[in-house]
């Protein structure tokens, strides 16, 4: 330690920001290396009028809050980098369908479908057509249904526009699940490789719309039943590709428009989403 210390008046002036620049340079250089003077500064700051110095207690509580929070997950960091505010990113990333185990299960299931689709063309095509649109549908239903986790109940207890959360999460989940299916779809010939997207987003939208009245996972189950019946009867009559005829495609587009509209209007009107009070 240095044998010399800053004279009290100079230290006092420096803390209040009224010392000259040369004096403050020497004070700063000394204080940075002297424990005793650092302690003197702390005492001075604590005893100086509030408007002249920072509220260090406040800053400390902010520091503590931030370091006690769990560090942001990779998904959260990615979403923040894409321009989503941190609070939104945290809520979106909490969706169960964005978790690694879920995505792993999804990928392995699709691998089987892909194997079938590549080896046996007719059955494989039907299988792909059956499964592909349901993957995003369930992904979205799992993203915010009360069955999926208790997290939405906590989230709905805080003042946050729930319809916004649901739509944001839907977008994120679609971004995560659709490309996986799309890669498998590329292995298939013709229109099927991309046309499955229309029923997929149509059903997703329907889940959103129905979630005003019933839990989203149940909505997804109902859609699955209808879809299985439609695809299997179509393949029995002629070919499974019938469900991708022009008139049905219009139906999917209508669903796509109706679903989110119902969600936004319905959540305002009924005050519920998936029977959770807003």
């Amino acid at each position: 330690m240095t044998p010399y210390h800053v004279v009290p008046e100079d230290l006092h002036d420096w803390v209040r920001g009224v010392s000259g620049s040369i004096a403050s340079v020497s004070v700063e250089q000394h204080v940075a290396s002297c424990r005793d003077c650092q302690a003197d500064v702390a005492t001075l700051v604590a005893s100086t009028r509030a408007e002249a110095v920072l509220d260090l207690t406040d800053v400390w509580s902010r520091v503590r809050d931030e370091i006690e929070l769990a560090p942001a997950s990779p998904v959260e960091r990615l979403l923040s980098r894409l321009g989503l505010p941190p609070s939104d990113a945290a809520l979106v990333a909490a969706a169960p369908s964005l978790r690694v185990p879920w995505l792993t299960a999804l990928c392995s299931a699709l691998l089987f479908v892909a194997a079938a689709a590549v080896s046996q063309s007719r059955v494989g095509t039907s299988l792909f057509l059956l499964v592909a649109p349901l993957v995003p549908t369930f992904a979205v239903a799992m993203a915010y249904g009360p069955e999926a986790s208790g997290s939405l109940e906590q989230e709905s207890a805080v003042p946050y526009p729930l319809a916004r959360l649901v739509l944001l999460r839907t977008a994120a989940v679609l971004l995560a699940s659709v490309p996986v299916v799309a890669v498998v779809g590329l292995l298939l010939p013709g229109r099927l490789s991309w046309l499955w997207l229309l029923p997929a987003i149509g059903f997703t939208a329907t889940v959103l719309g129905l979630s005003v009245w019933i839990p989203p996972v149940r909505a997804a189950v109902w859609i699955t039943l209808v879809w299985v019946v439609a695809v299997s009867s179509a393949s029995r009559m002629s070919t499974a590709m019938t469900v991708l005829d022009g008139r049905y495609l219009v139906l999917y587009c209508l669903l796509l428009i109706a679903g989110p509209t119902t969600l936004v209007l319905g959540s305002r009107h009924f005050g519920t989403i998936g029977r959770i009070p807003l």
Partner: protein
Amino acid sequence: MTAQVRDDGQLLSALSDGDMAAMQTLYERHAPWLSVRLTRRCNDREVVADVLQDTFVAVWRSAARFRGDGDVAAWLWGIAIRRLVSRLRSRRAVVVLSDVPEDPSRSTLAAEEQVLLGIEYGDLGRAMSRLSPEMRAVLQATVLDGLTTKEAARLLGIPQNTVKTRLHRAKAQLRISLAEEGRT
């Protein structure tokens, strides 16, 4: 002071084990002087509070990376001043380096001599007082705060080339003043 008082290095190594009490001690010891020193670089109270918060959060997260042999206070200041610079990049805050005129009637000179008599400067302080405020600001940002010319340019809100020119001139003037002082 008792023997139980941990020094900064010990506090930092405790931080990497998640010791919140050590964190608080470190904060109480260093936040006051860091806050005053930052306030002299930026007159926006909110910005300084944010920078101080960021600094200690960064310390918490990177305590393990601190090399045991260095000076903790200097390390902390290095983090803080860089946080301030990057904060100014994202938001153009009004920054002034306070330049209160020296008051010759005060005891400043005596105190300064006391301080400078130590290992810190020698005659540097007196030589610095002969520089223009602009050159002094550049010298302070680069030599004393340890910033690169690029960072100093951002902090002072002037082009990087200007920083280089002023720094070059300031050093030349300092050499001359110090040489003169050596002769007298």
